[in-house]
């Protein structure tokens, strides 16, 4: 009888006691979690809770003060290039070379991953069409709308067929049609075995596409589980993930805030 993969093999990402401070601010405090292959893990939390810092540490963009992260067995501290070779990253704000055209930028990214001409062409054509960027691919990115820049960023993150995709507020600026395409794309990628770490402030989206969610607050892990498990744990069966989130982060009583703003 064939046995299933061991936990180390099944895990795409293992973060152990990750910690990071900026000055006196503890951005992430000994965070431990795993992400399995083919799983979409939602990273939720209020502004400044440490989501983006966590994602950057996992990808080797920021150096943890302590702790470690392994992506498919590659330690981000000792092999950051190896981690980047198997990962794709969609940052919160598109940071593109705006003097390049969309297609030139994607070609540049393809070269960075060592892709051959045929592979680049196939991948770029496929995504330009799917994300409805064709017709603008030869325009300089500086003239793109926010949504178009986001589509280029998403395409760039998928150029090398990553095995781990890290998406930080990846649907920002997308129109509803494009957002739906990306959500479906993420689900399809997960089905193909890609592990996805996904942060968002739109909890309906998290509820719709995430297999599991982590709720962070002030750099700490507040709760972890499937949306159903979290509802049960919060004693709020039948409520939305938004209600659970607001209760867990202690921000459910917003009436006073709204009244102060309208005064």
């Amino acid at each position: 009888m064939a046995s299933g993969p061991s936990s180390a093999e099944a895990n795409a990402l293992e973060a152990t006691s990750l910690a990071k401070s900026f000055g006196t601010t503890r951005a992430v405090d000994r965070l431990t979690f795993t992400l399995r292959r083919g799983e979409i893990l939602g990273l939720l939390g209020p502004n400044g809770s440490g989501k983006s810092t966590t994602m950057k540490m996992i990808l080797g963009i920021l150096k943890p003060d302590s702790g470690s992260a392994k992506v498919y067995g590659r330690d981000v501290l000792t092999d950051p290039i190896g981690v980047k070779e198997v990962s794709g990253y969609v940052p919160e704000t598109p940071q593109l070379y705006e003097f390049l055209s969309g297609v030139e930028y994607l070609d540049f990214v393809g070269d960075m991953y060592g892709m051959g001409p045929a592979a680049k062409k196939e991948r770029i054509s496929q995504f330009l069409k799917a994300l409805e960027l064709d017709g603008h691919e030869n325009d300089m990115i500086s003239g793109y709308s926010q949504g178009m820049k986001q589509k280029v960023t998403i395409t760039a993150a998928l150029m090398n067929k990553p095995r781990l995709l890290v998406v930080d507020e990846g649907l920002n600026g997308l129109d509803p049609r494009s957002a739906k395409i990306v959500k479906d794309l993420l689900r399809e990628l997960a089905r193909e075995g890609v592990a996805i770490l996904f942060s968002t402030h739109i909890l309906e989206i998290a509820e719709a596409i995430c297999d599991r969610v982590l709720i962070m607050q002030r750099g700490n892990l507040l709760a972890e589980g499937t949306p159903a498990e979290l509802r049960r744990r919060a004693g709020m069966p039948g409520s939305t993930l938004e209600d659970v989130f607001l209760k867990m982060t202690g921000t459910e009583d917003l009436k006073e805030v709204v009244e102060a703003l309208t005064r």
Partner: protein
Amino acid sequence: MKPAKVLKISDVLVKSQLRSARSGRFSASFLNRPAAVVLVDAIAFGVSAVIVSRLVAFFPSIPGFSLATIARETLIFLPALLPPMIFVASLLFELNVSSKFAASDTLNWLPVSQSEYVTASALSICFIYSILPALAFGVTLPIAGSQGLLPVWVLAALLSIVALFTGALLVEILRATLNRVSTSAMGRARRGALFVRLAISITVIVTFQFFFNPLALLGLLTLFSREAAASFLVPFLWPSSVVREALDGQALWLIAFAGLSVGFAGFMTWAAVRVRSRFWSPSPVSVTVSHGEYTPSSGALQGFGFSAVESALIRKDLKGLTRRREMVPFLAIPFVMTAAFLLPQFTGVGGPRGPSSGAAGFPLLLVGGIFALIFSSVSIGQEGKAIANIYTLPVTPRQYLRAKAALALTFALAATAVMVVVTSVFLGLGEREILSALLLAPAVAVEETFIGLGFASRFPDFSERPRPRFVKPVGMLVAFPTGVAIMLASISPVIISLVAGSIAVDIGSIYTILMAAALIFSVAVSLLAYRWARGGIANLLRELGV
């Protein structure tokens, strides 16, 4: 125009310049306040005045030096000196705002008139670069004082401030003109239009540098008139003429030139407002760089030993050079420097006219090196916020360094080759100096490239607003004198040979030894600088600055 509003805008522009490269935790620091600029100016003024006052005591004992002549010439020269200085400083630090931010500048939608903005911006430029007049005033005060010319010094200082403001207005005119040139390639422009835009932009900068350089203009005019009275036709020299007439006791001419100076400042303000009103276009950039079907990039550069990653980085930076408005001033540097060095040679201002001894042309040998130093110093910071790509993509520090060095070296060696030819052919270097230049100039370009990359990796400035600087001011302040000092040491055989030739001393026997020592020095510096740059880049790419 409301003066209070002008001062407020100016204050904001100065603060945004001071704070653009600093993180939030320093926001309360004294260094972030305009008062810090005043303090630095006061220190610069005081220190330079004390040093020169000590030196002045020695002047009378040096044969051939007449302090009275020096006092007269420095006071006359003072107001003419500042506009070109402001122009060169602005070329490096003021004219490189990207079109993206020029278009989204808050002032475009606030109720601010063009005249208010232009005046405020010119005032902020004067304030930011006020260390230049502070130093000049400190140097000239003891000299003037020693000759009982303090009232004339006060007059010269006041006129220098007028000239400084006029120079800042010139920068505003150039800024608006370059904006017009870059917007000419907007819309559905083709790739060729981008090259045309680049060529026009460089031409505009060099032309401005020439036609608004008082020395160049005076030289040109005297070529035809052969009379010093030609200065009457150069408005930027009118403040100097006021000082000259004050020294000569010509009250009528003094009043006339003073009126002309103030009138010229008024005219420049009007012209700057008109040019900005007419040419400023806050429309977004939309350029189509190709109309053909996508063809994957070729591996042509890989034939030169570069990896696919390095080739892609080089191609990316090359495209940035030709397409980004903020990079144009850096490409213009060799042209501006060459013009600045050559003009006195051919116009006769500051020395005998026409092709002269090689000594006069040796500064041209520095052009390639200075270009390499500046170009490589800004090569990392110019990535701006998009540097995040380098952190997310699998790029090693070695690949990054090789790509940056390759592009900087290509341009620097090209500039060096042109300079060696120009210096050798047009300025009459001897055979020995030509041979030295052929050996040393490329070595200088290499060492300066790695020195620049070392500073670029340790002092990068990725901020894009209000005006990108690419390298932190402290980095540039240290890099430039360091690079130039090393450069001078490397070409010392040429300098020694030229000096020896001018005083009829034969150094033939030791020249070969000097050359060998200089080459060994240059190679050693290059290797050390390479290691320093590699360490800097490895450290930089370890973690993205937050």
